[in-house]
């Protein structure tokens, strides 16, 4: 069974009354144990793909199917997809002042457990687990008490996304430019986090502009997204080729 299977996906967005096609006949399959990377020019539809899979409101699916663990996502609510085991690491993580990071994590974890008819983790066990994950990501414990992403630096926000991923243990993680804005050490730390997460039953989709991330988290497949569809797929060497040649040669 594949984790994610997308076929012939076309998606429109509406801006100031005008319909615009952003994804156009996209096809992608991710199996358990695989790491995929998607690269592509700005505005090619990478984040849109991640948003559509995570069921962000505002996108209208014109055609195609999105299956996650054999369930049709097309009509699902965002929380249902998350409860099913999908995680989206945001390109721009959102600040929620007044809601502490720890409280937010606990609410997320409890919701996911509840949806799976599992008992919530005890608060002390949970906090212990979160603290140890935070220190593995070089995130000071103080970040757990602060408002969600409130006043975090760009790199701290990205590490906080990885923290959430490791706490929630999804089956598939879509990481949208989690490497952007990270310093060299943080890139290694985050990569270690992703590698620790990887196993034979789950999957990762990395959206990135930089080949460098792929030195640390080695993908099984690299795809190039352009104008809403995948125009080229290959292995890690494709990323190196893109780095030296740019995207123009593919057209």
């Amino acid at each position: 069974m594949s984790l994610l299977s997308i076929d012939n996906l076309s998606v429109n967005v509406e801006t100031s009354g005008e319909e615009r096609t952003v994804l156009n006949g996209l096809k992608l399959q991710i199996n358990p144990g695989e790491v995929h990377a998607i690269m592509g020019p700005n505005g090619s539809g990478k984040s849109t793909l991640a948003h559509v899979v995570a069921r962000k409101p505002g996108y209208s699916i014109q055609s195609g199917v999105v299956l996650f663990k054999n369930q049709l996502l097309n009509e699902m609510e965002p929380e249902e997809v998350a409860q099913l085991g999908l995680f989206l690491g945001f390109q721009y993580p959102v600040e929620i002042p007044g809601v502490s990071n720890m409280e937010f994590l606990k609410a997320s974890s409890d919701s996911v457990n509840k949806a799976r008819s599992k008992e919530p983790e005890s608060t002390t066990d949970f906090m212990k687990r979160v603290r140890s994950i935070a220190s593995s990501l070089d995130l000071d414990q103080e970040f757990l008490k602060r408002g969600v992403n409130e006043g975090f630096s760009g790199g701290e926000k990205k590490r906080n996304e990885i923290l959430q991923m490791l706490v929630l243990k999804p089956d598939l993680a879509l990481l949208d430019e989690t490497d952007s804005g990270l310093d060299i050490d943080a890139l290694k730390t985050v990569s270690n986090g992703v590698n620790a997460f990887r196993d034979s039953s789950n999957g990762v989709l990395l959206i990135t502009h930089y080949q460098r991330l792929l030195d640390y988290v080695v993908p099984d497949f690299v795809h190039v997204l352009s104008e809403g569809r995948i125009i080229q797929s290959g292995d890690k060497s494709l990323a190196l080729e893109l780095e030296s040649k740019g995207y123009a040669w593919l057209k």
Partner: protein
Amino acid sequence: MSQNIDRSESFMSLSDGEAMENTSLILASAQQLERWKYTKSSDVLELFLDTNVGEENTVITNAESSSIHVSDSGLKIEEIGRESPIAAFGLRKFEKINKIQIDGNLEEPVTLKQRGQPLPLLIEINDNASCQLHEFVDCEADAAVMTWIKMGKNSSLVHSRNSFRETGKHWQVTFNELESGASYTMHNHVKGSETKRQDILINLTGSESNAKVISAGTVNKDKKLDLQIICDHSTPRTTSHQRIDHVAFENGSTTFNGRIHILEHASGCNAQLKNRSLAMGSETTINAKPELEIYNDDVQCSHGSTIGQIDETQLFYMRSRGIEQKEAHAILCEGFLRETISGPLSASATSNLIPER
């Protein structure tokens, strides 16, 4: 401004209707002809007219302390004076009031439960005395609850008030007079009802007195909340701080009108007002109006009011972590009110104001 309004002398001989009209006029003139825009004064004044008042409706605990004196005092309308037309109106109706006098430093809080239609209450805090007041306004039906707080020199009061009834029309008026060096803090937690109007009228009559009002309010479907605060800086070097947050759910209506007056001779005053309102559903009504009236150059003032809607990106972020929409709303509401649910009664305020998850 019209000055030929009958203030008190023949007040007792007027008919109810005349007295009400009279009081409305005095109120209008006291508020610089700012008509009560949001809740008509007649609506709330009527609450005084046909209610059965009961002394037993005010329950005071911790009254055994030797520093507390409880009585029903035979206060006269003339004593209430010209500044408190509503108090005069209430007193005219009820003819007597309850009185608590504090003349020491109380360690334990005084607890006050208001039910039914309580008598107006006068709380006198003597010079240098200090206490904490925990007030639970729990009137099931229509009621007007009037509290008049007179604070002596260098006295201090921390007043926490929870008012969560959602049925009936309620009017809660608090007058505060602070002599020099007195310090008043109010932690107000309130839920809208059929109509709930709260007036907090603070007069900083003595220099270096200070007042702080921190208020969190939520309004559920089809309910109304109207909070009016007037802070008069009548003397030099007085400070006031208002921090007011309101959340309106679907079809709820909230109003906040916060006024700061700084009189001509009141130099060196500091007045701060910050108000935020959040609409968490469709068809909500939010009115917010901070007002400054300053007749002195040597003052420090700031006031700000913001009205916002639920942030869709925050909502999606939470839902993308598996949190149900309803729970996400509750969490965002709690986050929004975090700064204003405060003081010793904040735990019960959180459970009453924040929607169930």
